[in-house]
């Protein structure tokens, strides 16, 4: 297992958000995490990336413990993420946004910058090249000098993915990457996710509500409901699991009631 969660529990002020979650992502897999609204999917991302500290349980990446590490240290270890609502650095260019990802793979400090040491200049060149390569990978080469927030929404999502890839992760966490995309863009997203895995060898864990996308791209699906994992398996198995249907139907009732 690349990522492994063992009996992870998280609660806020007495409300249980995650309950004894055992979960794993294998290397090189495209794995989806689904479940009704409020099931705890994003909380699970926040636990994995160090934004929340679980009350109990263990999380490891390649055997390295993650719990108690700060988010930046988790990223350095090899987990990158995107956010549910795109969170690009506003008023900065697309390229500068992607360059942020290279921060944790580089080391020059203030003195090296002030003195323009050769090592620092070489590093800056490397940051630039890697970032451009990541932009090229998501198909946005040529847009690098525009302000990130002036791009179309679908492109902003791609910039966010490029920025995450620039951290050179082993595992990429995508939080509802298809939200707000049209059907053509969704198709392109599916291809992009596959290429991330195939060409870069990065495992992908995604949260997504668009079931056709999930069924299309995932090799494995885990279903979360009320903070617990209720089932896991390949798309076909999960699709026909009565527990899953029940979990989603329960939610539909609530929506009708509203």
């Amino acid at each position: 297992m690349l990522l492994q969660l063992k009996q992870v529990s998280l609660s806020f002020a007495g409300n249980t958000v995650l309950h004894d979650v055992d979960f794993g992502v294998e290397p090189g897999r495209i794995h989806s995490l689904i479940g009704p609204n409020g099931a705890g999917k994003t909380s699970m991302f926040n636990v994995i990336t160090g934004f929340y500290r679980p009350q109990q349980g263990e999380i490891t990446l390649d055997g390295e413990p993650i719990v108690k590490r700060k988010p930046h240290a988790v990223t350095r270890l090899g987990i990158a993420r995107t956010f549910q609502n795109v969170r690009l650095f506003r008023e900065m260019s697309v390229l500068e946004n992607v360059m942020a990802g290279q921060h944790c793979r580089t080391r020059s400090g203030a003195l090296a910058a002030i003195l323009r040491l050769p090592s620092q200049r070489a590093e800056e060149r490397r940051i630039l090249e890697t970032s451009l390569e990541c932009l090229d990978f998501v198909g946005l080469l040529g847009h690098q000098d525009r302000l990130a927030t002036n791009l179309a929404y679908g492109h902003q999502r791609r910039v966010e993915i490029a920025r995450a890839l620039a951290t050179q992760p082993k595992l990429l966490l995508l939080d509802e990457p298809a939200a707000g995309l049209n059907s053509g863009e969704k198709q392109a997203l599916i291809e992009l996710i596959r290429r991330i895995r195939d060409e870069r060898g990065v495992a992908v864990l995604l949260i997504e509500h668009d079931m056709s996308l999930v069924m299309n791209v995932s090799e494995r699906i885990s279903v979360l409901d009320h903070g617990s994992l209720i089932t896991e398996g390949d798309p076909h198995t999960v699709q026909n699991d009565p527990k899953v249907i029940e979990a989603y139907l329960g939610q539909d009732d609530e929506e009708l009631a509203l």
Partner: protein
Amino acid sequence: MTWYDSFLQQLVDGLVLGSFYALVALGYTMVFGVIKLLNFAHGDLYMTGAFAGFGGLSLVSGFLGAGWIGIFVAMLLAMIAVGCLGVVIERVAYHPMLGAPRLSILITALAVSLVLQNAALALTGGQYTAFSTDLGLGGFNLGNLFLSHNQIVLVATAAVLMIALELFVSRTLYGRAMRAVSIDKDMCRMMGINVSAVIAVTFFIGSGLAAAAGTMAGAYYGSIWYFMGFLIGLKAFTAAVIGGIGSITGAMLGGLILGLLESFGTHIPFIGSEWKDVFTFSILILVLVFKPTGLLGKSEVERM
């Protein structure tokens, strides 16, 4: 004097000082509660209040005298005038900034503080103004402890104002709206609460309390000047933080605690009175670092 008498004397001094801190801290905490802004100008409203009280007293002393009655009337006038000033400041300077980055809002608040301070500097030429009153020096002797009438009136007035505020916040419609606004502004708007009006009332009360403290301080210490709000602004903020910023009871408690700490702290060997302010700021920094939510503050959602 035995150590016991000196202890009591320190206690009395601390209570007097703490009453000033508490009154000023209340304004900080109330404004912070409703608009999450650190009103840097608050200490200067205290200073403005002292000058307004001084002006008020010269208006009314002709027929009411310059004793406590005249001072009370002057204090009420100052509270109204400075309360209105607070509302104007909110409208002109803070309201347009509410969507701006936090840094801009903070600098704007600082600018307002500097405008008030330097306007007073320009008007007074930086000189101390004598706040002359007819207050006597009488008082009681309890053993070796001396309690002046002025100290008693001052602490009692502060207590009455704070009780009135507590009742206002817990019993009246506006008070409840104020608490609601501090929790969720958008929800309040949807429920039909006039959020702008609530914010205005909050500024009015907060500024008015600062003016009350300013007038009383002027009358008690006998002189006022343009820079008198700076230190007390910092200290009242410290008091608000000790109590837990956003909590009204906390501000009162924090003010008293700080007053007592200063009063006793300066009598600890090796901490002479010249180190008093260093002592206070060290407390501020320690509290912020180790217990930023203060004694009664609510903690924000735990994040790493």
